Each structure stands twice: as structure tokens, then as C-alpha cells.
């Protein structure tokens, strides 16, 4: 028996599941937007602007979800400053939650700046202050800000998996692949969100086809990493015999990866594939978190 079965469940449930899902989409979409911003053409601008908007709203929602989930939400700033020694900063580079708190703050800042730049580009900003900020984040500066946001974005998508691995809980600490899996899932769900939302901001068919092509590759990577994740669990895999295993197999692999892969390859309606990818990304977080959360330590210890 893995030694992880003697630890206690941290009660990370729906707020955290939603955060991992939303953070993955926001991070993945921002990463793709930054790549397209740097290496795409003028016709791809709607995708770039959509990506930064998704990132900005996702970062704000992520911050809210994380704060609400705390036992003492008003003390959220204790993650950033030493509460008894303000303004000394609180930072532990080896603690994923500490690192992540700073990353989400900076990601939010750079994503919001990039989104304002994009909105100003479209002439959608009516508030003078926001228009002024958006007006500054243009051209070369916009690329730099977007590039930083993109790098922070892919970090946000993946660190949540590392955070789970840096525990002593069953499944999470029994494999080093969760971070890589969440990176791939962040990329696939980020692309899916762009496929669904970018047409509303004028994305061309060509841009969407390219997103579909990328999503296909991301799904293949995700499937490969998922196989490696499960293989690395070894004897711990017995925890999947039950409801969460069914969710992983049917929901994540079947509906969330294989079905949209078929749709992408057959060039069927992209929106249907994208919705399935989002469903799969959500169920991946649900299954990996709740399968571990549900393991009662004393029952296992007592051999029950």
C-alpha cells in the first residue's frame, strides 16, 4: 500500500475544481493568444483579442474562487505579505501554493492589461481611464505584455497539477505527471474556448481551422500524458475501480478526448468538438480531485 493512504483529505472540492478548470482555460487561451500575437498574421487579431479577454476574466474569476474557498477569506493577503511584518513579502519558491498566489496575481495584471489593449484596438472601451490604459498597451509594448501573460498563463494551467503532486495524498502524490497533464488540458480547453468565443469577435474560418488543428494535437498530447499518468500510478490504480474510474474513462477519455478528436479530424462542426473538450477538461479535474478526496484514511488504515 502506498504511504499516501495515511494522509488526510484537504477538502478541496467544488471551488477548487472550478478554479483548476477556469485557470486552465484562462492560462491555455492566454498562451495561445500570445503565440498567435507574436507569430500570427493580422487576420488572427480577433483570436488574440479573444484569448486575452478570456485570460483576464478567467484570472479575475480564479482569484475570486480561491478567496472564497479559504477558511478565512479576508486573510487572502497573508499569501502575499507577512501578516505580522507588512510590507515584507511572503514567498516560498518551493511551495506551489505560495508560488501560485504570486503567479495568479501577476497573470491577472498582465492579462487585464493585454485585454484592455485588445479592447482599445477594437474601439470598445468607453471609460476614459480604461481607454487611456488600453491605448498605452499597443504595438511592441502589447506584444511584450502579452508574451509575459502567455508564459504566466501556461504556468497557471500547469502549476495546479504540481500543487496536487506536492502533497502526501493518494493519486496526486503517487505520480509526477499531473502537472504535465493539466498543462495539456489547459492548452486543449483554452483552444476550445477560443473556438467557441472568437467568432463573436470576428475570427475568420481560417483562424478557426488553425485552432482546430492545434486542438487536435493538444488532445493527442493530453491522451498520451493521461496514459503515462495512469501507468505511473501502479498499484494505486485500484482507486479507479468505481465511479471516478468510470468518469475518467467514459467522461474524460471517451467524451472529452476521443469524441472531439474524431470531430476535429472529420471537420465536423467545430463548436460541438470544443464543447466536448471543455466537458472533458472539467471532468478531468473532477475525477482526479474527488477520487483522492473521497479516500478516508482510517478506513484504509483499518483495512476496511
Amino acid at each position: 500500500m502506498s504511504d499516501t493512504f495515511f494522509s488526510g483529505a484537504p477538502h478541496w472540492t467544488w471551488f477548487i475544481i472550478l478554479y483548476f478548470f477556469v485557470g486552465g482555460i484562462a492560462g491555455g487561451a492566454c498562451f495561445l493568444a500570445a503565440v498567435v500575437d507574436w507569430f500570427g498574421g493580422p487576420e488572427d487579431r480577433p483570436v488574440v483579442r479573444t484569448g486575452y479577454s478570456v485570460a483576464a476574466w478567467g484570472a479575475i474569476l480564479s482569484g475570486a474562487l480561491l478567496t472564497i474557498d479559504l477558511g478565512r477569506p479576508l486573510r487572502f493577503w497573508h499569501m502575499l505579505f507577512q501578516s505580522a511584518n507588512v510590507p515584507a513579502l511572503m514567498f516560498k519558491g518551493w511551495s506551489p501554493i505560495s508560488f501560485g498566489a504570486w503567479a495568479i496575481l501577476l497573470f491577472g495584471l498582465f492579462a487585464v492589461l493585454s485585454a484592455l489593449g485588445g479592447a482599445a484596438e477594437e474601439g470598445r472601451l468607453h471609460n476614459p481611464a480604461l481607454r487611456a490604459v488600453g491605448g498605452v498597451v499597443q504595438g511592441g509594448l502589447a506584444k511584450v505584455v502579452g508574451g509575459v501573460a502567455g508564459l504566466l498563463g501556461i504556468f497557471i494551467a500547469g502549476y495546479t497539477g504540481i500543487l496536487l503532486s506536492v502533497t502526501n495524498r493518494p493519486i496526486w502524490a503517487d505520480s509526477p505527471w499531473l502537472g504535465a497533464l493539466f498543462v495539456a488540458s489547459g492548452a486543449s480547453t483554452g483552444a476550445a474556448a477560443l473556438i467557441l468565443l472568437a467568432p463573436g469577435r470576428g475570427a475568420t474560418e481560417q483562424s478557426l481551422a488553425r485552432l482546430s488543428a492545434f486542438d487536435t494535437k493538444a488532445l493527442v498530447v493530453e491522451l498520451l500524458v493521461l496514459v503515462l499518468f495512469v501507468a505511473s500510478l501502479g498499484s494505486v490504480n485500484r482507486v479507479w475501480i468505481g465511479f471516478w474510474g468510470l468518469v475518467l474513462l467514459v467522461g474524460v477519455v471517451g467524451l472529452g478526448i476521443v469524441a472531439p478528436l474524431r470531430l476535429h479530424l472529420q471537420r465536423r462542426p467545430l463548436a460541438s468538438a470544443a464543447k466536448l473538450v471543455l466537458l472533458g477538461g472539467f471532468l478531468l479535474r473532477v475525477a482526479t480531485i474527488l477520487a483522492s478526496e473521497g479516500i478516508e484514511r482510517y478506513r484504509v488504515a483499518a483495512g476496511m
Partner: protein
Amino acid sequence: MPEPMGFFTDTTVCIGCKACEVACKEWNQLPAENGGIRELSGDSYDNTRRLDGIHWRHVRFIEQFKGPYDGRWLMMSDVCKHCVQAGCLEVCPTGAIIRTEFDTVVIQSDVCNGCRACIAACPFGVIDINPVSGTAQKCTLCYDRLKVGLEPACSKACPTDSIQFGAITELRTRAQKRVDQLKSQGVKAELYGADPNGALGGLNSFYLLVDQPEVYGLPRDPQLPTRNLAMSSSLSVASAAVLGVLALVGLRKRRMDDMGGPGEGGSN
């Protein structure tokens, strides 16, 4: 600077009276569960069942019975291990968890914001949220009592000296003598967590056991949560790099297509 202090728990003399649990609850003013209406476990005389935010001591009852007249009770008063290398302290993002001058590990309730990272990090399942404070809590090894020269409430209350408090070096010597005594009587006794070169640099609350650690709900080889950090981070970076290259290759191919380059084959 005081010496490292801790507990040596000799499980062979524990009688399961739960005086330690009561003393701990009283001294630390820990609330009752469910408003004092306790649900009985139904399958054991142990109704506390686990350590958590309002149970900092738990007398574990292990009932090993093959038949009605063939078996034994093992009892162990469980508590925070005050690890020399503590996983909870390592991951705490607020700095709420500190190491004291007595080499014990304490959660400062006025700093903790209830993120619960420490709960998942502890290999022993010691920590949980206290619903009254909304913060993570566990045994403080009665830091307030130690500061004024008193011994912790639990060891003070223990009527059989199953829980012994003292300087760690002295406790280790005493524990080894007890193991030798039991072995000479034919009892399979082993110390758990007494080795400073062992897991987590040794436990400042260590045990004398007469069965496998797992039987007592203890991991055989407890480890720090950061053992996975380097590998997990490396694989995540590799995954991000692969996806980044895939995104770039797609775009570059398209650009070459647009420029009328070497068509479908122009992917490099």
C-alpha cells in the same frame, strides 16, 4: 536555547482511558463535535476515530480478534509527530506554521487563512480545519505550557505514563531500554520515528509499537511533499515546451503556405 522536547509514547502500557484526549480538549478549549451530539462509530469502542482540527489527541483502538476469545487490543494515543523535517511547515504559504525554540511545530491561528495545503502535506493525517476558527489546527505540544515550564496537558494526565514528555535525547535512551526489556520477554517491540537519521529526520513524538506501523495507521516511510517538486515541474515544462512547439510549427507552416512556399511539406 532549550533542548528539543517531545513525546515518547509506549503503546504497550496504554489502557485506552482517553484521559489525554480529555485533558487536551480542556486545556486547549477545543469545541465539541456536532454540538456535543456525538455519532457513535458503531463498529468500535473508538468513537473519536481520527485526529482533526478539534481532536488534537486521539486514542486509537485496534481490535485484533480472530474469534471471541482469541485476540488482543492495541491502543495508541496518537498526536502530531512534530517532525524534524515537517511537510506542513514546508508548504504553508502564509508562514503560519513555525518551528519553536523547543523544536516543535506550531500553527499560528492568527496567521493561518485556511488554505488547507498543510492538511494534504502531512503524511500522518494529523491536521484539519477547526470549524470555529476556520483555520488549520493541530497539537501545539502545549507551547503555552512549555513557555512557563509546565509539561503538556496530555502527558500530565496520562495515568500509566504511556505518554512521556521530556528532552528528546533522554526519551530516546529511555525508549531503547524499554524495547530491550520487552524483547527479552519475547515481545516484538520496535520504535517508530526515534531514529534521527530515519524518515523526516526523526519524529519529536515517537512511538513504541508491537505490530507493523500500518496496523496503527502510520505510514511505513513518511516523506516530505516536495519530493515530487523537481520531477513534476520538469515534466510540466516539457509538456508546455512540446505544446509550444506544436503551436509554432502550425503557424510557421501556414505562413509558408501563404507565401507560396514548399506547400504541405513546408513544416520545418
